[in-house]
């Protein structure tokens, strides 16, 4: 039985064997990331970090709702930004979403995104900021639509550029390609796919395999040798109030 550390209506944090922590997002209907929610997730990552301390094995899995809940058939996005919030608060991304991305890329322990369903828009950098991605093989699409919406922020392409083959990064950023799980695996966008009933176990297996790599205290530093540019660009646009960094979407979805 996992140990419950956070048990709120919209978010849970549970500790499993082998120092594997699972963050479950359950903010109906689509786990959209507004400022408050992004900060809540940052808080969960921070809590894991504080519990584990330095030089310790550990890993975090970030997942969507329990498979039981999103099995409704209709369009159910795993995550995306609340684009309306930008209307009320033009600094919303700078206060929530960008700091969240920076937190994950900086995190001292291996991270796994368990993409249980649709991953759309801002959810794509969110998934890419994790070290590994496991996706539902049967249901859900992965697509980044900024080119179709007129959306941009400095650094939006850094993770695709650093993690994906150049032609795949182009497919994601300039073509807004919509990947199924199988296609995403083929193109290296995700590392594994699994049927809904098995995907949690697959993610857990990955987490247990790589958790020991954090023990010598250099996991985050070494990861940043590969993707540190992304962390820097997210930090650069976090908590910015004196200038506008991003191109807000011309179209809303």
């Amino acid at each position, binding site marked *: 039985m996992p140990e419950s550390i956070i048990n709120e209506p919209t978010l849970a944090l549970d500790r499993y064997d082998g120092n594997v922590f699972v963050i479950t997002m359950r903010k109906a209907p689509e786990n959209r990331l507004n400022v408050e929610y992004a900060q809540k997730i940052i808080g969960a990552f921070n809590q894991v970090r504080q519990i584990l301390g330095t030089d310790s094995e550990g890993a975090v899995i970030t997942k969507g709702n329990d498979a039981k809940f999103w099995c409704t058939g209709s369009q159910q996005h795993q995550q995306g930004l609340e684009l309306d919030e930008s209307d009320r608060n033009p600094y919303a991304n700078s206060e929530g979403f960008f700091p969240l991305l920076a937190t994950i890329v900086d995190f001292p322990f291996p991270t796994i995104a368990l993409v249980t369903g649709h991953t759309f828009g801002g959810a794509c950098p969110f998934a890419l900021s994790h070290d590994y991605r496991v996706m539902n093989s049967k249901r859900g699409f992965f697509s980044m639509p900024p*080119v179709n919406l007129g959306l941009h922020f400095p650094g939006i392409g850094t993770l695709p550029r650093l993690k994906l083959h150049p032609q795949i990064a182009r497919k994601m950023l*300039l073509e807004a390609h919509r990947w199924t799980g199988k296609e995403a695996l083929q193109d290296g966008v995700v590392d594994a796919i699994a049927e809904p009933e098995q995907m949690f176990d697959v993610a857990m297996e990955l987490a247990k395999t790589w958790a020991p790599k954090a023990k010598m205290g250099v996991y985050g530093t070494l990861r940043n040798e590969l993707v540190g540019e992304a962390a820097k660009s997210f930090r650069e646009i976090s908590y910015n109030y004196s200038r506008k960094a991003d191109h807000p979407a011309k179209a809303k979805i």
Partner: protein
Amino acid sequence: MATTYKSISLERTGNIYIITLQKPPENRLDVAACQELIRAYRQIEKEFGRDSEGAVILRGNDAKFFTTGLDLHERDVNPFVSSDGFYPLLATILDFPFPTVALITGHVMGGACLLTLAHDYRIMNDSRGYWQMPPVNAGLHHDGMGSLIRAKLAPQVRRKVLLEAHRYKGPEALKDGIVDAVAPPDQMLDVAIAWAETWKSKAKMGVYGVLRNELVGEALKAYQMNSYVHHRETAREPKIKL
């Protein structure tokens, strides 16, 4: 809009513009030709207008040559020749707000390879023509030469291109991800047009160039930095003229 060109010709079909290199025998890119190309890209951009769909295809004029690169004899009289033509041309294409397609009709060598890599997509003749970057063989280098290669190619292919001077024919270039499609000479223009038609709408929301530069920004900076520079050398004298 009456603009005359000597080394190129322009034709428009719907929202696709085709620029054809027409400087026999090999479409070598001297400063004048590069500046004409820049003018052409600017003219096309103006005609498309902002926040509209559009795409540009650059091609050679026959199935023998695309372009065999820079005019290395011009460098004898003007040491800043690349800085005055070629680098600004690459910067212009990398910056361009609409999708770009290079239709590699035939042979392409050296600087011309970089010209093709600067475009968003590459279509190549499947049966004729080589794609090769010979700098390592010729003792040639310019600052930032690797930036486009790094931006567009997988690590082992980069090494093959820059350190091995591998000579590619179409099918192998496709396999290594250097080009996106190959086609027989009599179909290649249609294939290029089909690609341009597929992606032209991505420019409509006005962020195509900005998003492209998320992927190629380092290369754009490298070529901007070396454009119109006369106070220092930005390239090494080739030991062999090819």
